C-alpha cells in the first residue's frame, strides 16, 4: 500500500559485487544473488537478481518510482493528486493511471464500494494526512454514505499521450493505497524486463513479484508478532501481496485500512495475503479481503489467498501455494 510520504531516498546499495570498488567481474552467481535496496514511497524496497543491475537500470528504476510518486502520492505537496485535492479542478494523469483506474473500477464494483480511491478524504480526517497529524478531526461529512464515491465522484476523460484527465471538486482526495504499491511493483518489474532481466524478485515491503529462477519461499508475517510467521508461501512466476493493520496504527482502533462506506477502520480481519498474476491485482485484493468475502471476489478475479481474523483464526483458499501453521 502506498502510505507514506514519499521521497525516493538514498539508494543504499547492499549488492556485494557492486559495493566492491574493484569488482570488475561480477561474481554474483557464485556469491549468491545481487540485491538493490532503496527507500521509496515511504517504505523499503529490494530488488534481487542473479546478476547486479547496471547503474543505468538502477537509475531507471528510481526514476520510474519517483515519477509514479510525484503523480499519485497524496503525501506530496507537488503531486497531481494533491493539486486536485486543493482545487485544481482537473489534472492530467499519465498513461499509468489507465490500468490502475480500470483495476479500481473492478475492485469498487466487486466490493460494493469498499475499495474506493476516494477514501483519501476520510483517511485524512482520521489523521492519516501528509503532515502525519495522526489525530482524528471532526468529520465534515458525518454520514459516510453522503461522501462522493469512485462511481461518480470524479469524472474521467482521455488526455494527451494516453493519459487521463481527472476532474473533481476541491477536497477530493484520491488515495491509491489499496493497489498503487502493487502496481508500482509491476511497473518496476517492467523496467527490469526492458533491461533484459528475466529472473528477479521485486519486493516492495509486503508486495512482491517473482519471475524466473528458483521459487521463492516467503514467510507470512504474524500480524501480532513480527518475529513470527503463521505460514509460508512458495511463489514462482506470480505476485504475492500482504496487507495488515498492525503497522500503520496511530490510536485505539485507528489504522489505514478504512471502509469508506462506514468511515471506520476494519476490525474483524487483521491480515490478508493474496497470490495473483499481477502485483497490482494481488495488492488490491489484499485490501478488498478486509471487507468482502473471497467467494464474492472470486466472481470477478482469479486469485488465491490467506485471511487472518482478530480471534487468531485464519482461512485459506485451497489453491494457496503454501501452508499455514496450525
Amino acid at each position, binding site marked *: 500500500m502506498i502510505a507514506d510520504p514519499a521521497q525516493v531516498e538514498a539508494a543504499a546499495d547492499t549488492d556485494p559485487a557492486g559495493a566492491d570498488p574493484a569488482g570488475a567481474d561480477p561474481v554474483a552467481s557464485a556469491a549468491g544473488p545481487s540485491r538493490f535496496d532503496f527507500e521509496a514511497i515511504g517504505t523499503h524496497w529490494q530488488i534481487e537478481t542473479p546478476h547486479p543491475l547496471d547503474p543505468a537500470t538502477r537509475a531507471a528504476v528510481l526514476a520510474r518510482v519517483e515519477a509514479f510518486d510525484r503523480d499519485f502520492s497524496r503525501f506530496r505537496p507537488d503531486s497531481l493528486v494533491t493539486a486536485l485535492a486543493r482545487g485544481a479542478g482537473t489534472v492530467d494523469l499519465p498513461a499509468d493511471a489507465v490500468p490502475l483506474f480500470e483495476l479500481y473500477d473492478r475492485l469498487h464494483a466487486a466490493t460494493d464500494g469498499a475499495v474506493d480511491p476516494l477514501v483519501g478524504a476520510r483517511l485524512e480526517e482520521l489523521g492519516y494526512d501528509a503532515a502525519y497529524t495522526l489525530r482524528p478531526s471532526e468529520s465534515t461529512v458525518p454520514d459516510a454514505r453522503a461522501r462522493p464515491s469512485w462511481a461518480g465522484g470524479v469524472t474521467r476523460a482521455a488526455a494527451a499521450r494516453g493519459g487521463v484527465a481527472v476532474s473533481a471538486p476541491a477536497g477530493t482526495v484520491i488515495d491509491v493505497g489499496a493497489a498503487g504499491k502493487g502496481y508500482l511493483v509491476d511497473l518496476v518489474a517492467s523496467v527490469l524486463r526492458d533491461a533484459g532481466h528475466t529472473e528477479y524478485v521485486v519486493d516492495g515491503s509486503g508486495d512482491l513479484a517473482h519471475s524466473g529462477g528458483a521459487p521463492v519461499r516467503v514467510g507470512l508475517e504474524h500480524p501480532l508478532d513480527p518475529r513470527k510467521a503463521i505460514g509460508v508461501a512458495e511463489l514462482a512466476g506470480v505476485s504475492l*501481496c500482504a496487507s495488515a493493520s498492525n503497522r500503520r496504527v496511530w490510536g485505539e482502533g485507528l489504522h489505514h485500512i478504512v471502509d469508506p462506506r462506514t468511515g471506520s477502520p476494519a476490525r474483524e480481519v487483521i491480515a490478508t495475503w493474496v497470490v495473483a498474476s499481477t502485483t497490482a491485482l494481488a495488492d488490491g485484493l489484499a485490501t478488498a479481503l478486509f471487507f468482502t468475502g473471497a467467494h464474492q471476489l472470486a466472481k470477478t478475479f482469479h486469485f488465491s489467498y490467506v485471511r487472518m481474523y482478530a480471534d487468531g483464526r485464519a482461512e485459506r483458499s485451497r489453491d494457496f501455494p503454501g501452508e499455514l*501453521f*496450525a
Partner: protein
Amino acid sequence: MMTTRQKKIGLTALAGVSLSVALAGCATDATAESDAGAAAPAETPAASSAATPAATSSASSGDSAGSSSGSTYKDGTYEATGSYTSPNGQEEIDVSLTLAGDVITAVTVTPEATNPNSVNYQNQFADGIAQVVVGKDIDEIEVSRVAGSSLTSGGFNKAVETIKADAA
C-alpha cells in the same frame, strides 16, 4: 496428501449442511471449456442437487474431454448451489465437484453467506482450515523473505512516538 485431506474436509462439509448432490448422466454445456474443442451436443445439465430444503443447480463440464468410457458419469466439474436454514436465516453455499472416471477428484464448497455469524461458520466449510494458526519463529522456517504490512517510514514512526509521549 493435501488433496486427500481437502477432499475429506469437503465431503464432511457437504454432510454438515445436509446437502447432497446427485450426479446423473452426462453433463455438458456449450460454455464448458473443453480440451477437445469440439462442443458436445447440448444436453440437459445433469448435475441435479437434492439439497435440503431447497437447491438450484447448474452444471458445467470443465474437463469433458476426458475418457469416460466405462464410467457411469461423464468426467467434468459439476456445480450446484444449495440453501439451508441456519439460525441466522436462509443461507446458500456453492458446491463444485470434479469427477474423473467416476472418482471425485476435487470438491469445493464456497460460502455465499452475508450474515457475519454464518460467514464464520461457512468459512470453515469453504476452507477447511479456518482454524487458529500459530506463529513459528521466522528464523526456523527457512524463508528468504517475509510478507506482512509494509514497513513504515521514519516520519510516521516519529509522529506516533510524539503522540504517545503527549498522551503519557
